[in-house]
């Protein structure tokens, strides 16, 4: 099929992603692993820009590289710095799982849509409809916003609820940091 100049960028970013991913697998120092995850997110964000997903890139940079890293560092500060290597059983178990799942994914490749093809069914059916319909239906230039807030606004409501639920669960687990809840937690430790 076609070739696009951005593909050179694609492959260099992929190379970096693979390197960082591999480093995370090998890394025993948790601090380094967490920081590399931030790097991984940032590289993904860069690639999202090259894939025309600017909204996703923005979010991934803010969330993946920002909030997630802060949270993981905070949790690390409260827990441990070093990860012990997993046992041999775990290693083999993981390898079996990864091989099975990877085989299923590789099996599917020949019938996956051609990369960059505008006419693949994935890109030419509902996704294309949104591009055509948005000026008429919603009249917002950013089609991602239109789909996110209106066509699939219910999903976004669900997403807001997910975030809210996370706050509820974290409050249940850690309290809000007020003295009362901290003392209670101390008591209920078995």
């Amino acid at each position: 099929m076609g070739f696009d100049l951005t593909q050179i960028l694609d492959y260099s970013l992929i190379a970096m992603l693979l390197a960082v991913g591999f480093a995370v697998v090998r890394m025993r120092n948790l601090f380094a692993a967490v920081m590399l995850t931030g790097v991984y997110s940032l590289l993904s964000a860069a690639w999202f820009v090259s894939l025309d997903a600017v909204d996703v890139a923005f979010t991934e940079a803010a969330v993946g590289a920002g909030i997630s890293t802060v949270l993981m560092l905070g949790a690390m500060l409260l827990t441990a710095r070093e990860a012990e290597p997993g046992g041999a059983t775990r290693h083999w178990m993981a390898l079996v799982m990864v091989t099975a799942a990877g085989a299923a994914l590789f099996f599917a490749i020949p019938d996956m849509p051609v990369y960059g093809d505008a006419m693949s069914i994935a890109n030419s059916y509902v996704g294309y409809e949104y591009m055509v319909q948005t000026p008429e239906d919603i009249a917002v230039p950013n089609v991602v916003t239109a789909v996110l807030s209106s066509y699939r606004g219910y999903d976004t409501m669900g997403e807001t609820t997910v975030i809210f639920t996370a706050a509820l669960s974290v409050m249940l687990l850690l309290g809000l940091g007020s003295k009362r809840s901290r003392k209670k937690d101390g008591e209920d430790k078995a």
Partner: protein
Amino acid sequence: MFDILADRAIYMPIIVLMMMGLYVVVATGNLVKRLVGLSIFQTSVCLLYITVGKVFGGQPPILPPAHHGEDHGEGHAAEAGHAAAAASSHDAPVHDAPAHDAADHAEPAHGEAAHAEPAVADTGHAEEAAHGAASHAQDAVQHVADAAHHADAAPVHVEGAIDGVLYSNPLPHVLILTAIVVGVATLAVGLALVVRIREAYGTIEDTALSAADYSAETGGRE
């Protein structure tokens, strides 16, 4: 076979990345690092979705601002036939359609715009616009070279394009925005659990936790 795979080569490293994340989740006993693996796994799945939505020569799915609001005909016209040459009648938008793309597809544009006419013509609203598009399309081949600069040029039809501009598919972007948010929510809850586990057990290594639970179950209480 090689061609089939070459067109889809991009998926292979993404699959490898996904599997790296999954490996970390299963193979490590450290609770924080398992969450690290989980977040890499999820980010890689996001990459898979977004690559599917990529269109070569495409723009981010943000329509030119001048475009929205006024022309009713346009939506109907495009709806009438998927390949219909979408014509904007009143305010010809200024796009920066890449010239080489337009040139590549000049030939199909000619033919398709011509037989798009009947499909569009019955939408009363868009009739005028469609005629305009069709007649313009007759000499679209001559126009392609300067289509990019021509303010009132007829939009050259490229397969899957809107007004001659290709856009990447917005739907995967929307889905992945949701997935990223879900990912960070899960991460926050997971980390909160890890903090509590550390406070209750004094360790966050899986083997030590199992040992502690085992001794509690067999020896310890009562």
